[in-house]
């Protein structure tokens, strides 16, 4: 583990040393600072980079351990994150009951995973997932983790489900088609 001794350095020097070490490819670092403002700034910086951070006070110094892009925390840039297009309330064709079960389990598992999608786009019977009790709970969990859920407004009207929508933002064909054309999209 590389140790960055940033004691006695005024802000923003500790951050610069940390940034430099990260740019040089260091994955595990310990930063030592001797002031609270430097500690706060290092914590802000590492959390903005999605790194796993712990710290402790030893005497007059603060020791901050940072694990960047390691096992503990996968950092994926927004542009690299995938969008999921769901146009049915079930996965696959064949047995409908199995399809429903698979979709429910897929949405239930998604929030627990290390890699999250950037957005979930719901169309046709897919919009029912944002209206049903159980699947909407899973979608809510995803929303809390920063995943944007876009729900087709025309579809809501068609199925007369406007009043039953429990999660997500009502969207239109313009926004959804733009999302389908930019970046990578996974279709379920």
């Amino acid at each position: 583990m590389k140790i960055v001794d940033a004691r006695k350095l005024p802000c923003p020097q500790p951050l610069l040393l940390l940034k430099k070490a990260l740019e040089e490819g260091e994955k595990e670092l310990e930063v030592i600072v001797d002031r609270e403002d430097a500690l706060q700034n290092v914590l802000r910086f590492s959390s903005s980079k999605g790194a796993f951070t712990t710290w402790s006070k030893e005497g007059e110094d603060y020791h901050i351990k940072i694990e960047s892009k390691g096992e503990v925390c996968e950092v994926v840039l927004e542009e690299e994150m995938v969008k999921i297009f769901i146009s049915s309330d079930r996965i696959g064709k064949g047995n409908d009951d199995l399809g429903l079960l698979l979709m429910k389990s897929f949405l239930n598992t998604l929030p627990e995973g290390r890699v999250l999608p950037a957005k979930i786009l719901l169309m046709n019977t897919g919009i029912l997932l944002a209206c049903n009790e159980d699947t909407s709970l899973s979608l809510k969990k995803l929303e809390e983790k920063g995943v944007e859920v876009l729900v087709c407004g025309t579809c809501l009207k068609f199925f007369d489900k406007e009043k039953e929508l429990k999660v997500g933002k009502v969207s239109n064909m313009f926004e959804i088609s733009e999302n389908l054309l930019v970046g990578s999209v996974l279709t379920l």
Partner: protein
Amino acid sequence: MGPQDLGEVLQKLHIPHNPKILANWEGWEDATLYQLGSGLMMVQTVDIITPVVDDPYDFGQIVAANAISDIYTMGCLPELALNIVGFPCSKLPLDILSSILKGGQDKAEEAGVEIAGGHTVEDEELKYGMVVTGFGNKDSLWRIKGAEDGDVLILTKPLGTGIIATTLKAEMASKEAVEKITKSMKKLNNLPLIIRDRDFRIHACTDVTGFGLAVHALGMVDGSKLGIKIEVEKIPVFEEVLRYMSEGLMPAGAYRNEKWASGKVEVKKDGFDPIILFDPQTSGGLLIAVPLPEGERLLEIIKRNGFEEAEIIGSFIKDAEEKIVFI
């Protein structure tokens, strides 16, 4: 210095009584008020800073605008100034100092101020400041205290100069961000001139500088049994600031200010990082308390005079605890 350290030092000093002095360093006032007789007031202030931007001419202008601001906050007009300079002769070419002083002089001239002299010392780190003297009328002074229940609070410049200047030191600031704060810091807070012939009842006025918005706002309610309710979304902030802030590019002063004000500042807005409220500003905007019916009209005039981002950010309310509440 942070408010905590400063308070501790000043506490130990004896303040002699002089009936001619209406305001001294007690009570958060921005400048000293000295009665010259028949209602004429002399107002004096001193301010010195280390460089916040790289361009020496810009820095000089910022120093002047920053120092002169304290005269304007009292509702007075500045007339005279003296330079104070700390310069590392062995490290920097003298041309730089010439450009800095030229900037100071040009800005002072814009404000109608004559720089009549000054003093220099050799210093490890570059510093430039000014002693500014202005004059006003006893009946038309603006003080930091005097706001009334129901008054609205106007802030005339966006927040974030401290954060962007820190980001600049880290060589991580965008060119646009630096240009924006430079323009803002160079701008004179010349409200007394802007509303000279107009009939506004300015109940209280101060400027946002080193202690940050929240602490300067506290100065306005200290001892008044009033509090201020401020709407976070109304506060003008330089666009890039939130990103730099989340990356930890905060000046140390912000944490000192936050620590000092804890207990007197309440943040009720979810998902909002309050540290911006404590960002030390250089040549920050004015905080103006004005009766509600005059608020929009005054804001309009302020905006028209080049402070496009000025906003009514909150209002004064009855509060025995004299807190600043951010909603």
